[in-house]
């Protein structure tokens, strides 16, 4: 009598699979949330993750210390000119205790809080994309969480509302019409762009002048079935995307070509930066400027491969891995703050994402209380939200939409906080 290896192998796999049971997560709801995030993120491309924080209350203001233990509003600059040491993560309970006592943004950053009308002059609800000049906003009509509509230039003080992009007119295909993500501004607000998708799975980028609404560019990028890829329009009429596994260059006249030397790199969705990892670390390459930065960074944590890339903002890039249910995060500074430094933490129930230049949002198991942390000063404010969509980042770098108040749309201008 012999034992059939194939049968034994199939049996072992089957027995093990049968032991796996669901753990109560609402998988359908999670998938819907991810779909919404992906749709938003495709056009946003400016959010990142960070890690750090040590809790402590100082003079009535919730403050997080830096890794060197400073609790003052301005950490001392390092000899290299980089002002902020790499972060460390405090115990979860300490962080939650800090969050419970943190004041509102209005209390500690009153100069940065703005109230806008809750609806556009035509009655539409809207999302703020960014502020392109003082008192002038690019906004997008919202039709619920997942649906993005026309894009306008909006001046609340005068009530002026000028249409910039109407995806229904640009792409009349009813099956694939309309933006697949939030609009975004380019070149410091000079241009505004949205992405649409055609039924042939091509991604199209429509670019108009923010001041006039005049169309200045239309770039078509072939995409694989079911995928919409990040697009970085860095300058001129060129678009970088990585729908062919490596960064390719597209324009209204160029159907796409691989960038020399880009094998192994992938776009980060942030200002033209591509990233590649190797056994010795991680290399960032700005395709627009040609600048390269290489850092010694781990490629795995706990045996799990790290994911570097999209979570890049002006300050931080991060990599995450999940090791038996514990989220591990490592940070790589991409610009002058903590550049080249890394730290990894066991984040547990903590969730965190970086917004703007040097701010992070974080929450614990109670996702309805969210901390806004100024990583440069250590100050923390807390907001209470009825649902996750009440707190939104714009695609511009420094605008955070807070929960509405008294029918007003409330914005936090992070640039004013740092200023």
């Amino acid at each position, binding site marked *: 009598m012999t034992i059939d*290896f194939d049968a034994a192998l199939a049996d072992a796999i089957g027995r093990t699979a049968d032991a796996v049971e669901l753990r109560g997560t609402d998988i359908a709801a999670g*998938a819907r949330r991810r779909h919404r995030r992906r749709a938003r*993120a495709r056009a946003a491309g400016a*959010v990142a*993750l960070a890690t750090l924080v040590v809790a402590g209350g100082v003079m009535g203001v919730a403050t997080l210390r830096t890794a060197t233990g400073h609790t003052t509003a301005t950490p001392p600059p390092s000899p290299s000119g980089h002002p902020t040491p790499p972060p460390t993560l405090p115990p979860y309970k300490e962080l939650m205790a800090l969050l419970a006592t943190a004041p509102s943004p209005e209390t500690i950053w009153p100069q940065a809080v703005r109230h806008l009308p809750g609806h556009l002059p035509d009655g539409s609800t809207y999302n703020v994309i960014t502020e392109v000049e003082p008192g002038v906003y690019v906004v997008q009509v919202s039709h619920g969480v997942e649906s993005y509509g026309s894009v306008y230039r909006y001046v609340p003080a005068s009530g002026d509302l000028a249409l910039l992009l109407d995806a229904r007119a640009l792409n009349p295909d009813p099956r694939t019409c309309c933006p697949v993500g939030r609009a975004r501004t380019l070149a410091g607000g000079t241009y505004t762009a949205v992405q649409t998708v055609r039924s042939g799975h091509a991604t199209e980028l429509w670019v108009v002048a923010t001041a006039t609404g005049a169309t200045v560019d239309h770039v078509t990028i072939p995409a694989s079935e079911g995928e919409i890829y990040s697009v970085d329009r860095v300058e001129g009429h060129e678009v970088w995307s990585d729908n062919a596994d490596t960064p390719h260059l597209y324009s209204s006249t160029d159907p796409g070509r691989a960038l020399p030397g880009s094998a192994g790199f992938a776009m980060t969705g942030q200002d033209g930066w591509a990233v590649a990892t190797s056994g010795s670390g991680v290399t960032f390459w700005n395709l627009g400027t040609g600048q390269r930065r290489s850092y010694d960074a781990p490629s795995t944590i706990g045996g799990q491969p790290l*994911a570097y890339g999209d979570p890049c903002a002006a300050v931080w890039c991060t990599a995450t891995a999940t090791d038996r249910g514990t*989220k591990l995060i490592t940070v790589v500074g991409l610009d002058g703050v903590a550049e080249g430094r890394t730290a990894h933490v066991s984040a547990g129930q903590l969730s965190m994402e970086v917004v703007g230049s040097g701010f992070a949002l974080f929450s614990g198991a109670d996702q309805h209380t969210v901390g806004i942390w100024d990583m440069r000063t250590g100050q923390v404010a807390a907001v209470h939200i009825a649902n996750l969509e009440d707190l939104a980042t714009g695609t511009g770098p420094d605008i955070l939409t807070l929960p509405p108040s008294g029918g007003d749309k409330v914005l936090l201008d992070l640039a004013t906080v740092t200023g």
Partner: protein
Amino acid sequence: MRSRHDDNEAAFAEFVRVRQLALVRFAWLVSGGSYATAEDLVQDALARLYGRWDQVSDPEPYVRTTIVRLNVSRWRSARREVLTALHVDRPVADPELELVESDTGLMRQVLALPKRQRTAVILRYWCDQSTEQIAAALGTSPITVRSNLNRAVQRLRTTWPAADPASTHGRQR
């Protein structure tokens, strides 16, 4: 009157309700025995399905193929999740891992295989897929799949049958 959107929502929810356990088990196997990764893979794959519900005629093969491709290119898939939602990732014990780790047998060796070899083994021995079907799922050639399977089986045979006492209770002939 129900809209097309409502109908799609209901159909998607029903599909997930009926098939989520099978999908999580499949993802758990191809991911090498991590429940957190498996759930992550399934949610990612379902998020893609959700956005294309109207266009996918047979959702389960689509989701399984997506799981396989996400898993073999995990670095890239994680990179695409730009907006890291305020998502709670609760630290939990992995009872399945404990089960496997208490078993010195064949399955432990399977989960320790390199990712592509492990995926090929799962698709062949658990999903009864042909070499061509596995190649299509992995986005590679049948020759490469055969090579991966041969290497995996050679490796598993070196520790079998002594490695898995439980396997003697399996099918014999």
